[in-house]
Protein backbone atom coordinates (compact mmCIF):
# COMPACT_ATOMS: atom_id res chain seq x y z
CA UNK A 1 0.00 0.00 0.00
CA UNK A 2 1.48 3.31 -1.11
CA UNK A 3 1.44 6.01 1.52
CA UNK A 4 -1.32 8.48 0.97
CA UNK A 5 -1.01 12.17 1.73
CA UNK A 6 -3.85 13.06 4.07
CA UNK A 7 -2.71 16.57 4.85
CA UNK A 8 -4.85 19.54 3.88
CA UNK A 9 -4.26 23.25 3.81
CA UNK A 10 -6.68 25.63 5.54
CA UNK A 11 -5.26 28.97 4.50
CA UNK A 12 -1.92 29.28 6.25
CA UNK A 13 -2.67 26.29 8.48
CA UNK A 14 -1.67 22.73 7.56
CA UNK A 15 -3.79 19.99 9.11
CA UNK A 16 -2.24 16.53 9.19
CA UNK A 17 -5.53 15.14 7.98
CA UNK A 18 -8.95 16.55 7.10
CA UNK A 19 -10.89 15.12 10.08
CA UNK A 20 -11.53 17.63 12.86
CA UNK A 21 -13.65 17.29 16.01
CA UNK A 22 -16.54 19.76 15.87
CA UNK A 23 -16.98 22.39 18.51
CA UNK A 24 -19.30 21.53 21.38
CA UNK A 25 -19.17 17.85 20.59
CA UNK A 26 -15.79 17.04 22.06
CA UNK A 27 -15.76 19.04 25.29
CA UNK A 28 -12.43 20.82 25.61
CA UNK A 29 -10.72 17.85 23.97
CA UNK A 30 -9.05 16.76 27.20
CA UNK A 31 -12.15 14.76 28.18
CA UNK A 32 -11.38 12.46 25.26
CA UNK A 33 -7.67 12.13 25.84
CA UNK A 34 -8.12 8.71 27.48
CA UNK A 35 -9.99 7.25 24.50
CA UNK A 36 -8.48 9.10 21.53
CA UNK A 37 -4.91 10.05 20.75
CA UNK A 38 -5.58 13.74 20.17
CA UNK A 39 -2.45 14.16 18.08
CA UNK A 40 -3.95 11.84 15.43
CA UNK A 41 -6.86 14.15 14.66
CA UNK A 42 -6.66 16.79 11.97
CA UNK A 43 -7.72 19.19 14.68
CA UNK A 44 -9.85 19.71 17.74
CA UNK A 45 -12.37 22.53 17.71
CA UNK A 46 -13.01 23.10 21.39
CA UNK A 47 -16.33 23.98 22.95
CA UNK A 48 -17.52 27.53 22.26
CA UNK A 49 -15.84 29.99 24.62
CA UNK A 50 -17.03 33.34 25.89
CA UNK A 51 -14.81 35.76 27.75
CA UNK A 52 -16.52 34.92 31.03
CA UNK A 53 -17.72 31.57 32.36
CA UNK A 54 -21.35 30.72 31.56
CA UNK A 55 -23.83 28.41 33.18
CA UNK A 56 -25.82 27.53 30.05
CA UNK A 57 -29.46 26.54 29.94
CA UNK A 58 -31.23 24.35 32.48
CA UNK A 59 -31.94 20.75 31.42
CA UNK A 60 -33.49 19.24 29.33
CA UNK A 61 -30.71 20.26 27.01
CA UNK A 62 -30.93 17.60 24.34
CA UNK A 63 -33.59 15.48 22.71
CA UNK A 64 -33.30 12.84 20.05
CA UNK A 65 -35.22 13.27 16.78
CA UNK A 66 -35.36 11.09 13.64
CA UNK A 67 -31.72 10.57 12.60
CA UNK A 68 -30.81 13.67 14.55
CA UNK A 69 -30.76 15.46 17.85
CA UNK A 70 -31.67 18.87 19.18
CA UNK A 71 -29.42 20.65 21.61
CA UNK A 72 -29.79 23.79 23.62
CA UNK A 73 -26.75 23.63 25.86
CA UNK A 74 -26.59 27.40 25.96
CA UNK A 75 -22.82 27.46 25.69
CA UNK A 76 -22.03 26.48 29.26
CA UNK A 77 -18.33 27.08 29.58
CA UNK A 78 -15.40 28.00 31.75
CA UNK A 79 -14.47 31.24 30.02
CA UNK A 80 -11.28 32.04 28.18
CA UNK A 81 -8.98 32.55 31.17
CA UNK A 82 -9.65 29.21 32.78
CA UNK A 83 -9.44 27.58 29.34
CA UNK A 84 -5.96 28.95 28.82
CA UNK A 85 -4.90 28.08 32.35
CA UNK A 86 -6.53 24.67 32.78
CA UNK A 87 -7.06 23.08 29.37
CA UNK A 88 -4.65 24.50 26.85
CA UNK A 89 -1.49 23.17 28.53
CA UNK A 90 -2.77 19.59 28.39
CA UNK A 91 -3.91 19.99 24.78
CA UNK A 92 -0.46 21.32 23.96
CA UNK A 93 1.22 18.42 25.76
CA UNK A 94 -0.88 15.97 23.82
CA UNK A 95 0.05 17.70 20.57
CA UNK A 96 -3.51 18.48 19.54
CA UNK A 97 -4.09 21.00 16.76
CA UNK A 98 -6.38 23.33 18.66
CA UNK A 99 -9.03 25.41 16.98
CA UNK A 100 -10.70 27.68 19.50
CA UNK A 101 -14.37 28.39 18.86
CA UNK A 102 -15.16 31.85 20.20
CA UNK A 103 -18.48 33.55 20.91
CA UNK A 104 -19.34 37.07 21.87
CA UNK A 105 -22.38 39.21 22.53
CA UNK A 106 -20.69 42.21 21.00
CA UNK A 107 -18.08 42.81 18.37
CA UNK A 108 -15.69 43.97 21.09
CA UNK A 109 -15.96 40.65 22.86
CA UNK A 110 -14.87 38.75 19.74
CA UNK A 111 -11.96 41.14 19.35
CA UNK A 112 -10.97 40.82 22.99
CA UNK A 113 -11.14 37.01 22.83
CA UNK A 114 -9.04 37.00 19.68
CA UNK A 115 -6.46 39.23 21.33
CA UNK A 116 -6.21 37.07 24.43
CA UNK A 117 -5.99 33.82 22.50
CA UNK A 118 -3.37 35.18 20.11
CA UNK A 119 -1.07 35.60 23.08
CA UNK A 120 -1.69 32.08 24.33
CA UNK A 121 0.61 29.25 23.39
CA UNK A 122 -0.89 26.36 21.47
CA UNK A 123 -3.80 27.83 19.52
CA UNK A 124 -3.75 26.92 15.82
CA UNK A 125 -6.77 28.89 14.62
CA UNK A 126 -9.86 30.78 15.72
CA UNK A 127 -13.30 29.69 14.66
CA UNK A 128 -15.82 32.51 15.07
CA UNK A 129 -19.09 31.11 16.26
CA UNK A 130 -21.51 33.60 14.78
CA UNK A 131 -24.15 30.95 14.35
CA UNK A 132 -25.24 29.38 17.64
CA UNK A 133 -29.01 29.26 17.36
CA UNK A 134 -29.64 28.62 21.06
CA UNK A 135 -28.81 31.83 22.77
CA UNK A 136 -29.96 35.30 21.96
CA UNK A 137 -26.60 36.89 22.59
CA UNK A 138 -24.58 34.21 20.80
CA UNK A 139 -23.43 35.99 17.73
CA UNK A 140 -26.37 34.84 15.63
CA UNK A 141 -27.13 38.51 15.07
CA UNK A 142 -23.78 38.70 13.32
CA UNK A 143 -24.30 35.40 11.55
CA UNK A 144 -27.63 36.40 10.02
CA UNK A 145 -26.45 39.76 8.72
CA UNK A 146 -23.98 40.20 5.89
CA UNK A 147 -22.58 43.41 7.28
CA UNK A 148 -22.47 41.90 10.77
CA UNK A 149 -20.45 38.98 9.39
CA UNK A 150 -18.17 41.27 7.46
CA UNK A 151 -17.60 43.54 10.46
CA UNK A 152 -16.80 40.87 13.00
CA UNK A 153 -14.44 39.01 10.67
CA UNK A 154 -12.50 42.09 9.67
CA UNK A 155 -12.32 43.38 13.25
CA UNK A 156 -10.93 40.04 14.46
CA UNK A 157 -8.50 39.80 11.53
CA UNK A 158 -7.05 43.16 12.53
CA UNK A 159 -5.99 41.96 15.96
CA UNK A 160 -4.78 38.41 15.39
CA UNK A 161 -2.11 36.68 13.36
CA UNK A 162 -4.05 33.41 13.74
CA UNK A 163 -6.11 31.98 10.89
CA UNK A 164 -9.71 33.16 11.29
CA UNK A 165 -12.57 30.85 10.35
CA UNK A 166 -16.09 32.21 10.69
CA UNK A 167 -18.60 29.42 11.30
CA UNK A 168 -21.72 30.01 9.27
CA UNK A 169 -25.31 29.33 10.17
CA UNK A 170 -27.53 27.35 7.80
CA UNK A 171 -30.58 29.31 8.95
CA UNK A 172 -30.30 31.83 6.11
CA UNK A 173 -31.68 32.17 2.62
CA UNK A 174 -28.34 32.29 0.85
CA UNK A 175 -25.44 30.87 2.80
CA UNK A 176 -22.97 31.48 -0.01
CA UNK A 177 -23.38 35.22 0.34
CA UNK A 178 -22.16 34.87 3.92
CA UNK A 179 -19.15 32.92 2.73
CA UNK A 180 -18.49 35.76 0.28
CA UNK A 181 -18.83 38.41 2.98
CA UNK A 182 -16.39 36.42 5.10
CA UNK A 183 -13.91 36.13 2.25
CA UNK A 184 -14.21 39.85 1.51
CA UNK A 185 -13.48 40.58 5.14
CA UNK A 186 -10.29 38.55 5.02
CA UNK A 187 -11.36 35.23 6.51
CA UNK A 188 -8.86 32.43 5.97
CA UNK A 189 -11.61 29.84 5.58
CA UNK A 190 -15.26 29.35 6.45
CA UNK A 191 -16.79 26.42 8.31
CA UNK A 192 -20.39 25.26 8.00
CA UNK A 193 -22.92 24.22 9.02
CA UNK A 194 -23.82 25.03 12.56
CA UNK A 195 -27.14 23.56 13.70
CA UNK A 196 -30.63 24.24 12.32
CA UNK A 197 -33.03 26.06 14.60
CA UNK A 198 -35.70 23.53 15.51
CA UNK A 199 -37.99 22.31 18.28
CA UNK A 200 -39.86 19.31 19.63
CA UNK A 201 -42.98 19.18 21.76
CA UNK A 202 -44.16 16.49 24.15
CA UNK A 203 -47.78 16.11 23.06
CA UNK A 204 -48.87 14.53 26.34
CA UNK A 205 -47.83 17.57 28.40
CA UNK A 206 -47.92 20.05 25.48
CA UNK A 207 -44.60 21.36 26.68
CA UNK A 208 -41.44 21.89 24.64
CA UNK A 209 -39.01 19.04 25.16
CA UNK A 210 -36.13 21.49 25.64
CA UNK A 211 -36.12 23.97 28.52
CA UNK A 212 -35.02 26.61 26.03
CA UNK A 213 -38.07 25.81 23.82
CA UNK A 214 -35.95 25.81 20.66
CA UNK A 215 -32.60 24.18 19.96
CA UNK A 216 -30.24 23.24 17.18
CA UNK A 217 -30.72 20.19 14.97
CA UNK A 218 -27.61 18.16 14.14
CA UNK A 219 -26.83 14.64 12.99
CA UNK A 220 -27.39 12.59 9.82
CA UNK A 221 -30.83 14.14 9.26
CA UNK A 222 -29.29 17.43 8.16
CA UNK A 223 -26.49 16.04 6.03
CA UNK A 224 -28.09 16.52 2.60
CA UNK A 225 -28.79 20.19 3.34
CA UNK A 226 -25.29 20.73 4.69
CA UNK A 227 -23.69 19.10 1.63
CA UNK A 228 -25.69 21.40 -0.65
CA UNK A 229 -24.55 24.44 1.33
CA UNK A 230 -20.90 23.40 1.17
CA UNK A 231 -21.29 22.91 -2.58
CA UNK A 232 -22.76 26.40 -2.96
CA UNK A 233 -20.05 28.02 -0.86
CA UNK A 234 -17.30 26.24 -2.72
CA UNK A 235 -18.61 27.61 -6.01
CA UNK A 236 -18.76 31.13 -4.58
CA UNK A 237 -15.50 31.63 -2.70
CA UNK A 238 -11.86 30.76 -3.17
CA UNK A 239 -10.98 30.35 0.49
CA UNK A 240 -11.20 26.82 1.88
CA UNK A 241 -14.52 25.53 3.12
CA UNK A 242 -14.68 23.25 6.16
CA UNK A 243 -17.78 21.10 5.91
CA UNK A 244 -19.87 19.41 8.55
CA UNK A 245 -23.35 18.23 9.41
CA UNK A 246 -24.22 14.63 10.07
CA UNK A 247 -20.93 13.02 9.13
CA UNK A 248 -20.95 9.50 10.58
CA UNK A 249 -18.79 7.50 8.18
CA UNK A 250 -15.85 7.87 5.82
CA UNK A 251 -18.32 7.93 2.92
CA UNK A 252 -20.07 10.92 4.47
CA UNK A 253 -16.77 12.74 4.98
CA UNK A 254 -15.80 12.05 1.37
CA UNK A 255 -19.18 13.30 0.17
CA UNK A 256 -18.49 16.67 1.80
CA UNK A 257 -15.00 16.82 0.33
CA UNK A 258 -16.21 15.98 -3.16
CA UNK A 259 -18.90 18.66 -2.74
CA UNK A 260 -16.19 21.18 -1.98
CA UNK A 261 -14.89 20.86 1.57
CA UNK A 262 -11.15 21.04 2.19
CA UNK A 263 -11.62 19.51 5.63
CA UNK A 264 -14.55 18.21 7.64
CA UNK A 265 -15.74 18.33 11.22
CA UNK A 266 -17.53 15.59 13.09
CA UNK A 267 -19.95 16.44 15.87
CA UNK A 268 -22.90 14.27 16.82
CA UNK A 269 -21.32 11.06 15.54
CA UNK A 270 -18.61 11.38 18.19
CA UNK A 271 -21.32 10.99 20.84
CA UNK A 272 -22.45 7.77 19.23
CA UNK A 273 -18.94 6.42 18.77
CA UNK A 274 -16.01 8.12 20.49
CA UNK A 275 -13.70 5.75 18.64
CA UNK A 276 -14.97 6.94 15.25
CA UNK A 277 -11.80 8.85 14.40
CA UNK A 278 -9.58 6.00 13.35
CA UNK A 279 -12.49 4.44 11.46
CA UNK A 280 -12.96 7.63 9.46
CA UNK A 281 -9.27 7.90 8.66
CA UNK A 282 -9.03 4.23 7.72
CA UNK A 283 -12.05 4.57 5.45
CA UNK A 284 -10.62 7.62 3.73
CA UNK A 285 -7.29 5.89 3.23
CA UNK A 286 -9.02 2.83 1.83
CA UNK A 287 -10.99 4.98 -0.62
CA UNK A 288 -7.83 6.76 -1.76
CA UNK A 289 -6.21 3.38 -2.31
CA UNK A 290 -9.13 2.02 -4.34
CA UNK A 291 -9.38 5.15 -6.46
CA UNK A 292 -5.65 5.69 -6.60
CA UNK A 293 -5.71 9.17 -5.13
CA UNK A 294 -2.34 10.26 -3.80
CA UNK A 295 -3.37 13.44 -1.98
CA UNK A 296 -6.69 13.73 -0.22
CA UNK A 297 -6.65 17.43 -1.00
CA UNK A 298 -7.10 16.53 -4.66
CA UNK A 299 -10.61 15.33 -3.89
CA UNK A 300 -11.94 18.70 -2.83
CA UNK A 301 -14.68 19.96 -5.12
CA UNK A 302 -14.29 17.17 -7.67
CA UNK A 303 -18.02 16.59 -8.01
CA UNK A 304 -18.78 15.63 -11.61
CA UNK A 305 -21.98 17.25 -12.82
CA UNK A 306 -21.78 16.05 -16.40
CA UNK A 307 -24.46 13.58 -17.45
CA UNK A 308 -23.88 9.95 -16.67
CA UNK A 309 -23.66 7.13 -19.09
CA UNK A 310 -25.42 3.84 -18.89
CA UNK A 311 -23.48 0.72 -18.24
CA UNK A 312 -24.52 -2.87 -18.49
CA UNK A 313 -23.78 -4.19 -15.06
CA UNK A 314 -24.74 -7.84 -14.78
CA UNK A 315 -26.91 -7.92 -11.71
Amino acid sequence: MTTRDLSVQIGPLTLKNPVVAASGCFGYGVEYAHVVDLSLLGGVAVKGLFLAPREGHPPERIVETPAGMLNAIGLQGIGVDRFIREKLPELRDRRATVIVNICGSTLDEYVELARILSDADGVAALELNISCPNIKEGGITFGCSLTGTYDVVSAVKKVTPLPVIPKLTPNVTDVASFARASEDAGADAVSLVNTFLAMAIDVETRRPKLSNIVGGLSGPAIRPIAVRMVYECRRTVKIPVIGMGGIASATDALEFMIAGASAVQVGTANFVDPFIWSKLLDGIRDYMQRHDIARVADLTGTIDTTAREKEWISS
Partner: protein
Amino acid sequence: MPVDVEARVIRNTRLSSDYNVIALAAPDIAAATAPGQFVMVKLGRGSTPLLRRPFSVFEVLRTNGHIEGLTLLSKRVGVTTQMLFDAVEGDVVSCLGPLGKPYTPVDPPTEAWMVAGGVGLAPFATLTEVLRAGGTSVTLFYGARTDRDLFYLDWFRDRGVRLVLATEDGSLGDHGRITKPLERELHKGAGGLQPSGAAAGDVMIYACGPEPMLEAVAHVAARYERPCEVSVERVMGCGLGGCYSCVIPVRDGPMGHHYVRSCLGGPVFAADQIAWEAH
Protein backbone atom coordinates in the same frame (compact mmCIF):
# COMPACT_ATOMS: atom_id res chain seq x y z
CA MET B 1 -10.36 3.60 30.61
CA PRO B 2 -13.68 2.80 28.96
CA VAL B 3 -13.79 0.34 26.08
CA ASP B 4 -16.39 -0.18 23.37
CA VAL B 5 -17.49 -3.79 22.99
CA GLU B 6 -19.80 -5.35 20.44
CA ALA B 7 -21.30 -7.55 23.11
CA ARG B 8 -23.21 -10.69 22.27
CA VAL B 9 -26.44 -11.28 24.16
CA ILE B 10 -25.86 -14.37 26.33
CA ARG B 11 -29.49 -14.52 27.46
CA ASN B 12 -32.43 -12.23 28.03
CA THR B 13 -34.87 -12.85 30.85
CA ARG B 14 -38.20 -11.09 31.05
CA LEU B 15 -39.15 -10.30 34.62
CA SER B 16 -42.54 -8.78 33.80
CA SER B 17 -44.29 -7.16 30.86
CA ASP B 18 -41.91 -4.19 31.21
CA TYR B 19 -38.77 -5.34 32.98
CA ASN B 20 -36.01 -7.57 31.70
CA VAL B 21 -32.49 -8.59 32.62
CA ILE B 22 -30.17 -8.93 29.68
CA ALA B 23 -26.80 -10.66 29.94
CA LEU B 24 -24.04 -9.33 27.71
CA ALA B 25 -20.68 -10.85 26.85
CA ALA B 26 -18.59 -7.85 27.85
CA PRO B 27 -16.09 -9.32 30.32
CA ASP B 28 -13.57 -6.50 30.04
CA ILE B 29 -16.14 -3.92 31.04
CA ALA B 30 -17.57 -6.17 33.75
CA ALA B 31 -14.13 -6.73 35.28
CA ALA B 32 -13.42 -3.02 35.51
CA THR B 33 -16.81 -1.90 36.83
CA ALA B 34 -17.20 -0.45 40.33
CA PRO B 35 -20.70 -0.30 41.92
CA GLY B 36 -22.74 2.61 40.52
CA GLN B 37 -20.88 2.87 37.26
CA PHE B 38 -22.76 2.70 33.98
CA VAL B 39 -22.42 1.73 30.34
CA MET B 40 -23.68 3.50 27.22
CA VAL B 41 -25.45 1.05 24.92
CA LYS B 42 -26.63 1.19 21.36
CA LEU B 43 -28.83 -1.24 19.51
CA GLY B 44 -30.11 -1.43 16.00
CA ARG B 45 -28.85 -0.54 12.57
CA GLY B 46 -29.08 2.95 11.17
CA SER B 47 -30.11 5.93 13.18
CA THR B 48 -33.18 4.74 15.11
CA PRO B 49 -32.08 5.22 17.83
CA LEU B 50 -29.28 7.63 16.99
CA LEU B 51 -27.67 8.06 20.39
CA ARG B 52 -26.50 5.59 22.99
CA ARG B 53 -28.42 5.23 26.25
CA PRO B 54 -27.02 4.94 29.78
CA PHE B 55 -27.62 1.85 31.95
CA SER B 56 -26.18 0.93 35.31
CA VAL B 57 -24.25 -2.28 35.39
CA PHE B 58 -26.59 -4.62 37.28
CA GLU B 59 -24.67 -7.86 37.87
CA VAL B 60 -21.15 -8.96 37.10
CA LEU B 61 -21.49 -12.50 35.75
CA ARG B 62 -19.01 -15.04 37.06
CA THR B 63 -18.58 -18.70 36.16
CA ASN B 64 -16.11 -20.46 38.44
CA GLY B 65 -14.51 -17.18 39.37
CA HIS B 66 -14.06 -16.33 35.70
CA ILE B 67 -15.82 -13.13 34.57
CA GLU B 68 -18.16 -13.85 31.70
CA GLY B 69 -19.96 -10.56 31.23
CA LEU B 70 -22.48 -8.28 32.85
CA THR B 71 -26.22 -7.85 33.03
CA LEU B 72 -28.46 -4.82 32.71
CA LEU B 73 -31.80 -4.45 34.45
CA SER B 74 -33.96 -2.55 32.01
CA LYS B 75 -37.39 -1.03 32.15
CA ARG B 76 -39.23 -0.60 28.86
CA VAL B 77 -39.93 3.11 28.34
CA GLY B 78 -38.92 3.84 24.77
CA VAL B 79 -37.05 2.73 21.69
CA THR B 80 -33.79 1.39 23.15
CA THR B 81 -35.39 -0.28 26.16
CA GLN B 82 -37.93 -1.87 23.81
CA MET B 83 -35.05 -3.28 21.78
CA LEU B 84 -33.36 -4.50 24.97
CA PHE B 85 -36.64 -6.15 25.89
CA ASP B 86 -36.96 -7.87 22.51
CA ALA B 87 -33.32 -8.89 22.08
CA VAL B 88 -32.57 -12.57 21.75
CA GLU B 89 -29.48 -14.67 22.38
CA GLY B 90 -26.85 -13.96 19.77
CA ASP B 91 -27.92 -10.40 19.06
CA VAL B 92 -25.25 -7.77 19.41
CA VAL B 93 -25.37 -4.74 21.68
CA SER B 94 -22.74 -2.06 21.42
CA CYS B 95 -21.61 -1.38 24.96
CA LEU B 96 -19.25 1.40 26.07
CA GLY B 97 -17.93 1.53 29.61
CA PRO B 98 -17.44 1.45 32.48
CA LEU B 99 -18.21 5.13 32.97
CA GLY B 100 -18.82 7.57 35.79
CA LYS B 101 -18.07 7.92 39.49
CA PRO B 102 -19.07 4.90 41.60
CA TYR B 103 -20.57 4.75 45.09
CA THR B 104 -18.16 4.88 48.03
CA PRO B 105 -18.52 1.59 49.93
CA VAL B 106 -18.40 1.78 53.74
CA ASP B 107 -16.67 -0.64 56.10
CA PRO B 108 -18.06 -2.21 59.26
CA PRO B 109 -19.24 -1.30 61.78
CA THR B 110 -20.99 1.31 59.62
CA GLU B 111 -24.14 -0.15 58.10
CA ALA B 112 -25.22 0.35 54.50
CA TRP B 113 -28.80 1.29 53.78
CA MET B 114 -29.60 1.17 50.09
CA VAL B 115 -32.76 2.91 48.90
CA ALA B 116 -34.07 1.84 45.50
CA GLY B 117 -37.08 3.12 43.56
CA GLY B 118 -38.18 0.87 40.72
CA VAL B 119 -35.43 0.27 38.19
CA GLY B 120 -33.18 2.23 40.57
CA LEU B 121 -32.42 -1.20 42.00
CA ALA B 122 -29.83 -1.66 39.27
CA PRO B 123 -26.61 -0.43 40.93
CA PHE B 124 -27.33 -2.22 44.22
CA ALA B 125 -26.48 -5.75 43.19
CA THR B 126 -22.83 -4.93 42.57
CA LEU B 127 -22.77 -2.63 45.59
CA THR B 128 -24.11 -5.49 47.74
CA GLU B 129 -21.36 -7.82 46.55
CA VAL B 130 -18.65 -5.35 47.46
CA LEU B 131 -20.20 -4.45 50.82
CA ARG B 132 -20.90 -8.03 51.84
CA ALA B 133 -17.40 -9.06 50.83
CA GLY B 134 -16.16 -6.48 53.29
CA GLY B 135 -18.53 -7.79 55.96
CA THR B 136 -20.76 -4.73 56.05
CA SER B 137 -24.38 -5.35 57.01
CA VAL B 138 -26.72 -4.21 54.30
CA THR B 139 -30.37 -3.19 54.25
CA LEU B 140 -32.29 -2.66 51.02
CA PHE B 141 -35.24 -0.28 51.11
CA TYR B 142 -37.01 -1.05 47.88
CA GLY B 143 -40.16 0.59 46.60
CA ALA B 144 -42.24 0.14 43.47
CA ARG B 145 -45.77 0.64 42.22
CA THR B 146 -46.86 -2.91 43.04
CA ASP B 147 -45.41 -6.19 44.31
CA ARG B 148 -45.15 -7.47 40.76
CA ASP B 149 -42.53 -4.79 40.14
CA LEU B 150 -40.27 -5.90 43.01
CA PHE B 151 -37.59 -8.19 41.63
CA TYR B 152 -34.57 -10.18 42.78
CA LEU B 153 -35.74 -10.24 46.41
CA ASP B 154 -34.31 -13.72 46.90
CA TRP B 155 -31.06 -12.70 45.28
CA PHE B 156 -30.60 -10.03 47.95
CA ARG B 157 -31.90 -12.27 50.80
CA ASP B 158 -29.44 -14.98 49.77
CA ARG B 159 -26.66 -12.51 50.26
CA GLY B 160 -27.78 -11.64 53.75
CA VAL B 161 -29.42 -8.36 52.85
CA ARG B 162 -32.27 -7.23 55.08
CA LEU B 163 -35.25 -6.16 52.94
CA VAL B 164 -37.65 -3.34 53.70
CA LEU B 165 -40.29 -3.03 51.01
CA ALA B 166 -42.95 -0.54 50.04
CA THR B 167 -45.51 -0.49 47.25
CA GLU B 168 -47.74 2.32 46.19
CA ASP B 169 -50.73 0.02 46.00
CA GLY B 170 -49.95 -1.64 49.32
CA SER B 171 -49.65 -5.07 47.76
CA LEU B 172 -46.38 -5.76 49.61
CA GLY B 173 -44.56 -4.02 52.44
CA ASP B 174 -45.45 -0.50 53.43
CA HIS B 175 -48.36 1.10 51.64
CA GLY B 176 -46.91 4.20 49.99
CA ARG B 177 -43.48 5.48 49.22
CA ILE B 178 -40.24 3.95 50.29
CA THR B 179 -39.21 7.08 52.19
CA LYS B 180 -41.91 6.19 54.73
CA PRO B 181 -40.16 3.09 56.18
CA LEU B 182 -36.79 4.76 55.67
CA GLU B 183 -37.79 7.68 57.82
CA ARG B 184 -39.42 5.41 60.40
CA GLU B 185 -36.23 3.40 60.80
CA LEU B 186 -34.02 6.48 60.94
CA HIS B 187 -36.36 7.84 63.57
CA LYS B 188 -36.13 4.64 65.60
CA GLY B 189 -32.37 4.70 65.20
CA ALA B 190 -32.12 8.28 66.33
CA GLY B 191 -34.27 7.47 69.38
CA GLY B 192 -31.73 4.93 70.47
CA LEU B 193 -33.77 1.94 69.33
CA GLN B 194 -31.28 0.44 66.91
CA PRO B 195 -33.40 -1.61 64.54
CA SER B 196 -30.52 -3.59 63.26
CA GLY B 197 -28.13 -3.31 66.11
CA ALA B 198 -25.85 -0.63 64.71
CA ALA B 199 -24.85 2.33 66.79
CA ALA B 200 -26.81 5.49 66.01
CA GLY B 201 -25.19 7.45 63.21
CA ASP B 202 -23.21 4.56 61.86
CA VAL B 203 -25.36 4.35 58.75
CA MET B 204 -24.50 5.32 55.22
CA ILE B 205 -27.42 5.79 52.82
CA TYR B 206 -27.17 4.98 49.13
CA ALA B 207 -30.08 5.94 46.88
CA CYS B 208 -31.02 5.37 43.27
CA GLY B 209 -34.39 6.03 41.66
CA PRO B 210 -36.51 8.83 40.24
CA GLU B 211 -35.17 12.26 41.09
CA PRO B 212 -38.05 13.34 43.35
CA MET B 213 -37.40 10.21 45.41
CA LEU B 214 -33.70 11.06 45.56
CA GLU B 215 -34.57 14.52 46.75
CA ALA B 216 -36.88 13.13 49.44
CA VAL B 217 -34.21 10.67 50.57
CA ALA B 218 -31.63 13.47 50.63
CA HIS B 219 -33.87 15.57 52.86
CA VAL B 220 -34.58 12.68 55.24
CA ALA B 221 -30.88 11.84 55.40
CA ALA B 222 -30.02 15.45 56.14
CA ARG B 223 -32.69 15.64 58.84
CA TYR B 224 -31.19 12.60 60.57
CA GLU B 225 -27.65 13.71 59.78
CA ARG B 226 -26.76 10.58 57.93
CA PRO B 227 -24.28 10.64 55.05
CA CYS B 228 -26.00 9.88 51.78
CA GLU B 229 -24.96 9.25 48.21
CA VAL B 230 -27.45 9.45 45.35
CA SER B 231 -27.14 8.27 41.77
CA VAL B 232 -28.87 10.82 39.57
CA GLU B 233 -30.51 10.16 36.24
CA ARG B 234 -30.09 12.87 33.64
CA VAL B 235 -30.50 12.59 29.89
CA MET B 236 -27.08 11.69 28.55
CA GLY B 237 -25.93 12.27 25.01
CA CYS B 238 -22.45 10.81 25.24
CA GLY B 239 -21.50 9.64 28.73
CA LEU B 240 -17.97 10.95 28.28
CA GLY B 241 -18.16 14.65 29.03
CA GLY B 242 -18.42 15.74 25.42
CA CYS B 243 -21.92 17.14 25.10
CA TYR B 244 -22.85 18.88 28.38
CA SER B 245 -26.40 17.51 28.23
CA CYS B 246 -26.34 15.64 31.53
CA VAL B 247 -25.73 18.49 33.94
CA ILE B 248 -27.08 18.77 37.46
CA PRO B 249 -26.89 21.83 39.71
CA VAL B 250 -24.22 21.34 42.36
CA ARG B 251 -23.82 23.72 45.32
CA ASP B 252 -20.82 26.01 45.35
CA GLY B 253 -21.67 28.09 48.40
CA PRO B 254 -24.57 28.66 50.73
CA MET B 255 -26.81 30.02 47.96
CA GLY B 256 -25.12 29.41 44.66
CA HIS B 257 -24.81 26.43 42.40
CA HIS B 258 -23.26 25.54 39.08
CA TYR B 259 -23.95 22.84 36.51
CA VAL B 260 -21.78 19.75 36.71
CA ARG B 261 -21.79 17.00 34.09
CA SER B 262 -23.29 14.01 35.83
CA CYS B 263 -21.50 11.58 33.51
CA LEU B 264 -18.12 12.78 34.79
CA GLY B 265 -18.88 14.29 38.22
CA GLY B 266 -21.48 11.54 38.84
CA PRO B 267 -23.82 9.79 38.39
CA VAL B 268 -23.11 9.31 42.11
CA PHE B 269 -23.00 12.49 44.17
CA ALA B 270 -23.01 13.21 47.87
CA ALA B 271 -26.68 14.10 48.44
CA ASP B 272 -25.85 17.39 50.12
CA GLN B 273 -23.87 18.51 47.07
CA ILE B 274 -26.95 18.68 44.85
CA ALA B 275 -28.89 21.95 44.71
CA TRP B 276 -32.27 20.25 44.74
CA GLU B 277 -34.16 23.54 44.70
CA ALA B 278 -32.68 24.36 41.28
CA HIS B 279 -33.05 22.05 38.33
